[in-house]
């Protein structure tokens, strides 16, 4: 169980997206969504997607010394279970932490290493930390303007305006590709160098 309950700070463009998604229980009444972003199954979906994109893009660890970060003026109230998503993000962050802090054998003080690792993981397992720090932190990263174009979140909000055009960087297909590319880059930078490509090796070890 990993339930997000309460307000999450969101950028304006993301709030527009959230508002255009019909509530989950009303989904059946909408046989055909009028817009693309209305096709997200739950209001939390674009929030999680953008959070993950922010992590991939920034490859930064979230601040652990804060109870709350104030980044946006808009809030949206959620009460939703995100266990599967959080588990995966936590593993990504664990790898990123290991990348930045090294493996234990490199540490002189193994006790200190353990303490820091435990404290970090403990933070990640707290739904309130997710709600007040981690999600807004990465949303801010996904909301940063990119070279030659607007932010991922802005383009996601603008994808409803896309007509029958191919070279549009806000089209759903373009954004999905951009997400996949950022995901690959993250894996190649933060996971593979630590564990090698363990597709085969680790399975054999098991």
């Amino acid at each position: 169980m990993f339930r997000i309950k309460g307000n999450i700070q969101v950028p304006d463009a993301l709030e527009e997206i959230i508002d255009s998604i019909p509530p989950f229980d009303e989904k059946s009444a909408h046989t055909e969504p009028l817009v693309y972003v209305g096709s997200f199954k739950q209001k939390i979906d674009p929030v999680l997607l953008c959070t993950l994109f922010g992590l991939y893009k920034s490859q930064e660890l979230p601040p652990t010394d804060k109870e709350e970060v104030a980044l946006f003026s808009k809030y949206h109230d959620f009460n939703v279970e995100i266990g599967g998503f959080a588990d995966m993000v936590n593993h990504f962050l664990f790898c990123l932490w290991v990348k930045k802090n090294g493996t234990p054998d490199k540490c002189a003080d193994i006790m200190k290493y353990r303490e820091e690792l435990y404290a970090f993981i403990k933070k990640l397992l707290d739904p309130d930390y997710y709600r007040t720090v981690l999600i807004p932190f990465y949303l801010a990263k996904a909301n940063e303007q990119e070279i030659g174009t607007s932010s991922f979140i802005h383009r996601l909000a603008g994808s409803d305006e896309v007509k029958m055009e191919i070279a549009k960087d806000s089209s759903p297909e373009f954004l999905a590709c951009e997400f996949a590319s950022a995901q690959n880059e993250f894996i190649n930078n933060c996971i593979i160098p630590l564990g090698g490509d363990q597709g085969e090796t680790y399975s054999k070890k098991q």
Partner: protein
Amino acid sequence: MDDMHFSLIKVAGYRGRHFALKMNPPGQNTIFIMDGNTGKTTTIELLRWCFHYPESQAANKFTHMWVVPAHVLDDTKKGPQTCEITVQFTAIDDEGKEHFYQFKRITEGESDPNNKPTSDKIAKISDTLEIDHGKDAKHGDEAHEYLKHAFRFNECVDYFCFDGEKARDIMQLSSNSEKIGDLIFLVNQRATHPRIEEYKQKLNGLRNRVLEEAGAKVSSQALAINIGKLKARIGDLRALEKERDQLKQDFTTHSLALKTFEDRYKELQEKITTAKAQELVERTKYEIQIQGKTNEVMEKRRLIYALNSQWIGTNTNSINWIKAQVKEKGKLPEPYRQDLIQNCLASGCCEICGRALDRASEERIKGLERQVAPHEVHEFLSYDLKERQPAFDPEKERREIKRLIEECNRLENKMKSIKLSEEDAQLISEKEFVEQEINTIKGKIINLQRDVKEREEWIKDLKEEVEKLQNQNTTLKEYKIILDKIDESIDIIVDAGEKIKSKTIDIISGVISEGVQSILGRRFSAKLSPTEGLMLGEDGFFGRERGGYSGRLILSYCFAEAMTLVDPIIVDTPSGNIGSQRANLAQHLVENHRQILLMCLPTEIADFGPIISKKPIPIANKEC
């Protein structure tokens, strides 16, 4: 205003029509004999256009026989032109004094076949309402406002200016069970009592006066501020409620407009798909293919977002290997029982063997504590992340969408190269216009829904704040009974408004039924209800298919009569499809209206005309 009497309708230039319809004096009805294509429909539609739309909103709003919008200028005339319609009528005020009114709409412009959506290039529209032969005059939108308030023409012009088009609209509304909502919306518009809003405003004014009085008695500055704040909040609340009600009304109007446009779109689509012209058939074929591809692209794009959870993938084995490495190299201990350690330290005894802890043992246990992570942290470190591969290939989807769009562009180029006849091109252009309107209205409806929801939330918050302020203020306690009574009265008035609506529906239902009986005979009746809509009854059995075409046409007549707010009735081709009931219909009209103006085809006078007027007036379309 009472005893309204139309004396003249003069059309000069609009759609190439030139004639003056001079009515017989009060107490007499008038029949104009006008052949086909001489301006009967145009007259009715011009009246609707003038009374529905104020000067500032009239451009491109004229409609002609389901063509929306239709040209209003003379499309056969080249160069600048000026068209004019004059409507003269009299009415008696509450003090029994007769007043004369002359409404005039002048449209200046040019007809250009290349102009879209109609050929009209309107330069100027000017409205004037002259009252009592020049004693007073209203210009521009003021003329419309005056007619709206004094005669409510805007609400009932569709009914007192009646024709086959309106009859068909009503028949469709009454025949289609899915359109009951639309029909009841029209009736509710008619049933909304203008006084209700007035009373509500008066009560709100009274509440303000009570608060002012309470404020005057307050000596404490803090309480005075509280009362001022309360007054302001109540004002905000009322304004917000009004705004919300307006938005709700706009929502209903837009929903209705959407349905109308969607129906029209279906009609046009059907016309286009069943067309015989080879070019249009070919164009339609391409259009269907393009639509298919467009839908496919849209569906794929929607699916991309719907399947967003499948975008996420990772190298699970690597992650699990890293976890194992960290555990192994860091010699991370297996989970300790944290509660056991803490209990030992708290009690000073070993919780396992019961021996008292010496200093060295205590230090060792404290060291252990530093190695201990909460259970969930250990759990996180000990299990393997489950395999997760993205089931979604964005590159593949992108390639597929690109292919579909390219295919679509190719088909569009082919479609554009087809030369269409002028008539077919107009059909296509109208369909595109209607499609655009549908999309615009859909967008507006979404925004309105969101705005209504937002207002509802604000209203809820404001109500809570008002209640809190009222409870805080002790001085208000003595006025509380009055304020509560005012609130109660407002609720009663709102409730009464709803009851009036329901009662009005019953009355309208009764009026329609009496009308039907007087024309079709005692065996027939009619029923209007919010759940079943409008139905014709025969021998006590009601149904949407009863009465045949002529029966339902008469039902439409009676509905229009019940819905109008003015007495005269102006009808285009009144007995065209009435069949054997002509004489009965004529008799019914004579008995129920002080003035009847009919524009008849020469063929429909028999068994009908003489009952209404002995001297029909022939009218020809002549440019003066």
